[in-house]
């Protein structure tokens, strides 16, 4: 695989070009090169955007656009890795979603974007996610972190249900549970037995890193 292809792949990511990223990722894979290197290139480019956000040079729309480029291009190289039976090191795997009964997606999407541009693999379950669905995804993807969002005082107790479901399934110790959303407070997070709470998406990504260091 030529270095040029990887450079173009990175360039597509930092220029928010989803189609370009997908076609350069395909090209990399088709050229028979190491898909781990392509995955690393994607992650590195996303991290560049994440770092620029951290320095105050870029903004949330840039970050979310980058995350959606990653969402399109990453599966291409991950599939190739799977075919070869390869794996790669990431900061960790995050399963994220907005709880059952709640369709607020923007906060959750920002957390997903922050995590993706910080070096995490993220499985985004979307909104209105049942406790059962969270539980299944945590098991399937061997999630290091489960991140749940609830905006409403009427839906925040769903997060407790999920924590209980993890306990019941005997997987609570394997996954760190992080909660957030408009209605959530640190006291609430403590009360339901979550491992952490943060008020904003950038703070959540920092928390993810802290939790992975602790592990």
């Amino acid at each position, binding site marked *: 695989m030529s270095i040029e292809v990887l450079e173009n792949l990175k360039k597509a990511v930092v220029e928010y070009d989803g189609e370009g990223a997908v076609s350069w990722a395909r090209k990399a894979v088709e050229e028979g090169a190491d898909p781990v290197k392509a995955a690393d290139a994607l992650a590195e480019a996303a991290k560049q955007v994440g770092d620029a956000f951290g320095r105050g040079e870029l903004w*949330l*729309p840039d970050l979310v656009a980058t995350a959606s480029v990653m969402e399109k291009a990453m599966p291409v190289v991950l599939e190739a890795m799977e075919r070869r039976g390869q794996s790669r090191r990431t900061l960790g795997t995050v399963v994220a979603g907005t709880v059952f009964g709640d369709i607020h997606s*923007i906060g959750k999407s920002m957390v997903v974007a922050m995590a993706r541009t910080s070096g995490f693999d993220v499985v985004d379950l979307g909104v209105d996610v049942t406790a059962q669905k969270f539980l299944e995804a945590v098991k399937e993807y061997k999630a290091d972190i489960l991140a749940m969002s609830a905006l409403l*005082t*009427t839906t925040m107790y769903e997060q407790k249900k999920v924590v209980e479901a993890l306990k019941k399934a005997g997987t609570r110790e394997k996954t760190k549970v992080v909660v957030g959303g408009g209605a959530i407070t640190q006291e609430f997070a403590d009360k339901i037995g979550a491992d952490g709470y943060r008020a904003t998406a950038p703070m959540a990504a920092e928390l993810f890193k802290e939790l992975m260091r602790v592990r």
Partner: protein
Amino acid sequence: MVMKGFTRKFKPLEILTEEQLEAIHRGTLEVLEKTGVRVEHERALKMFKENGCEVDYKRMRVSFPPGLVEECLHKCPSSFHLKARDPKNDLRIGGNTLYFSTFSGMRILDLDTWKTRPATKTENVEAIKVLDALDNLHYHSAYTPYFEVEGISPSMSIPEGVAALMRYSTKVIQANYALDCEIFNIKMAKTVGIEVNGACLASPPLTYRRDAIESAFRFVEAGFPVWVCSGVMMGASGPATIAGSTITNNAEVMTGIVLTQLIKPGTRVWAGDCAFPMEMRTGSSAFGAIESSLHQVVFSQIWRKYGIPIVSCAVGPSSSKQIDFQCGYEKAIGAMLSALSGANVLTSYGGVYGELAFHPVQAILDDEIAGMVGRFIESVDVTEETLAIDLIDEVGPIPGMYLDKEHTRKWWKKEQFMPKVADRTSYPEWMEKGKKSALDHAKERMKEILATHEPTPLTSDQEAALERILEEARKYYSERGLL
């Protein structure tokens, strides 16, 4: 008899040309027809279909023919009466009137540490008593000052909040929906013999959740008015541009209004705007942003043309986490511009940061802003007597003066708004009396109100009926594992 509120006596602020307004109106109808709105409610979908909308049941998507939308807008009353527990607190919404109302917060704010925590039941009652006592607070547009009250489960927070408002205030009350609580709110209102205002809030972009629609059905069928509002976050749940997010926001509000008019033509409705730009670093709403005012002024200009009473909701919170200069200027500028735009209700009292924090001391400060804004929109009286030409002639140059004239004694109090908390003492007096700020005065005023103001209590029959309905609600939620 109704509470007078304030009356705007001059042309409202208009910032768009007719062509620009028309472009937004046309754009909104185009979006309603072409893109459509997701309405997650079977009965509503059927009703839309029966009235000529195209409905995709699987996607719960409704496309509205422009004619139907315009017809429904015409059916809304341009002004209407709202009944309070005490008839002297009834309101007449619409036209040139301006009323002020509450903006609730989840928690109470500590005035020394600026930390938030759930309010106690006593603090919730105290907040309502303060709101009941304030001159320019005409209307409890929020169902409770606080959503988080110690010892009250989230499921009971609205019914308990509404009951507390009925007990400790005789002003007009709003009663929201969540988890079917509107059933109990409606029952309580009917028992006490007042009207409560329902709500139907969109979930932008272009979506109505089932509970919002169910709420509209319940309140309209009970004969109560409905507050239809949307709260776009510019750049997140709507376009980043003010023009574009006005289109999505209006399409959302119109959908709710069409629904109410199809359920029962002539239903009393307000159109509410609660737009904030997204703060592109934290992802929160940028509360108190000047773009919210631009959005509101455009919204008011359009909805005045539709002849539907207008609510301005974005004037409630600030981005400041404390009661300080930023909180003051953000709220004051927002309130003034909304009032100038011709909005009929401003939900401004008591909110501090977002919907996180409320404090009655802030409501007391907002009462001052309301007084100043209200004074301004009542404009300048120009009559033979106020022109005072004969008097000017009589007084002439120095050593003539006006202080000893009967005209002055008669008019100064009519002309001047008298602040209750602004510090207007002389400098030496201010130094001597402990260098107090408006915030200090507001804290003192709160103590004074709580020491002297006793809201008219409910009769013992009303009280007993209220408690019965609350008990019924507790049973309802307990059976559903929500208590």
